[in-house]
């Protein structure tokens, strides 16, 4: 059994990216055992993701591995590429280079005149159904009640029986404290309620990985706490989560790994105690410093 650090290096030499941000294996003992990794598929792996918008290279080769139960937090100033990176993972943005592997399935790409695009959109749809996303602006479907929002994708994408979907949805709404709002429309709910509803919608897919794109940034300060509480519960029960956030205190509490992005490059990564409490770079120190 080869020690994990050399395994890390092997990945790097294969993809040619020195920006690999794998979780340091030493602090997560299970990951250093190769045969466990062979039997349990990694929920999500991104290798050397590059993305450019016009002349601007937004992502310059970023990698991560989300093992089961990992909570990976992406932090960085606006424009650092963290949201774009997250959106590349469920292909709402198409990465120009790099690989995505979800639960042992590698996403196929082809190159056309217009650029690189997924070769098989059916595959993309299947993969997306395994990666639930929670959006900054909630994006609950506004013509459906909260309950209808939660059962929509399970019924129409996963083809679950409606009755079963409703039962499960009610249990999830109860869990996020919104059972009494099941028949409300999104416009009839506060932002915090909408976001908790959106989390219930995400959970209803029983996803491999949950992707959170600045889930509390659009909320009034007094509503942030409820949403973070729900997310903390999810982290505690071992959900695999990748999260873009500005809530540093929350990131410190729940993350197994923090990635600090700067201009499309991983500047620092590691456990929160290292990255957030003992930042090596001056830039990260400044980023973390109180703003006022």
């Amino acid at each position, binding site marked *: 059994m080869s020690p994990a650090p050399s395994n890390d290096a092997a990945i790097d030499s294969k993809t040619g990216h020195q920006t690999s941000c794998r979780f340091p294996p030493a602090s997560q003992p299970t990951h250093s055992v190769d045969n466990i990794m062979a039997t349990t598929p990694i929920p999500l792996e991104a290798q050397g993701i590059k993305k450019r918008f016009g002349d601007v290279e937004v992502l310059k080769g970023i990698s991560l591995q989300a093992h089961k139960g990992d909570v990976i937090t992406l932090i960085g100033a606006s424009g650092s590429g963290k949201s774009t990176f997250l959106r590349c993972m469920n292909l709402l943005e198409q990465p120009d280079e790099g690989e995505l592997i979800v639960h042992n399935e590698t996403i196929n790409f082809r190159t056309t005149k217009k650029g690189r695009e997924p070769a098989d959109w059916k595959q993309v749809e299947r993969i997306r159904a395994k990666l639930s996303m929670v959006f900054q602006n909630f994006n609950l479907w*506004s013509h459906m009640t909260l309950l209808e929002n939660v059962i929509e994708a399970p019924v129409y994408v996963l083809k679950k029986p409606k009755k079963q979907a409703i039962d499960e949805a009610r249990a999830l709404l109860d869990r996020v404290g919104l059972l009494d709002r099941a028949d409300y429309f999104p416009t009839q709910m506060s932002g915090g309620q909408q976001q908790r509803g959106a989390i219930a919608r995400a959970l209803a897919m029983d996803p491999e990985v949950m992707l959170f794109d600045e889930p509390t940034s659009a909320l009034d300060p007094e509503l942030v706490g409820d949403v973070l509480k729900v997310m903390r519960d999810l982290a505690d029960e071992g959900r695999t989560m990748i999260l873009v956030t500005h809530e540093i205190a929350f990131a410190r509490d729940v993350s197994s790994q923090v990635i600090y992005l700067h201009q499309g490059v991983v500047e620092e990564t590691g456990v929160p105690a290292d990255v957030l409490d003992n930042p090596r770079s001056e830039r990260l120190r400044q980023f973390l410093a109180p703003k006022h």
Partner: protein
Amino acid sequence: MIDLQGYGPRLLEGALVTVELAVLSLILAVILGLLTASAKLSRNRLIHGIGTLYTTLVRGVPDLVLMMLLFYGGQIGINMLTDQLYDAFDIDIFINVNAFVAGVITIGLIFGAYMGETFRGAFQAVEEGQMEAARAYGMSPLLAFRRVRFPLMMRHALPGIGNNWMVLLKTTALVSIIGLTDMVRVAAEATKATHEPFMFMIPVALIYLLIATLSEWGFARLTKRYNTGFGESSEWNN
């Protein structure tokens, strides 16, 4: 009392033709409208061009002229085609352009262009985040359209559709010119025979009015349905 002098049943038959013509034309117009809106929003320049050409052409030519062109021109075209079939393959067929079908196609074609504009605005009025969520949850483009884009855009499209429908309904009166026996034509014939225009034209006007009133009620109900979730947030509370 009103004495329709035996024209009553024919007038009702004519009314039925009017309704059938209008409804079938509407269905065709909605389908063409959705296609046109998609074409005009397409990034493909050829498809975009076809959509633009269609709306420009149809909206710039009078309805009656288009109808004549399609009815008579269509017959000439088909005759030429069947002649060639006869010359080349000795196949002898005769196709008569049916006035009803020609009417549906012409009116559908005309209003498809107007619907296209209505739908284009409605397409764009749907918040991008709504479709993004549909994609992110694994919906195929067709499913996302059916479950998310369409119900959301209808809210914006319905006023325009209702307006187009009212105009379309009255445009059907033009088909009497290409020989279709709708209620206007029946009334015109009866007037000629009896020299009593009011006796027949007033019932016709009332029937149009009745259809229009029923439609308004129907559209009000549809509007209410597609507005669910967007109403006044009076129930808003924490």
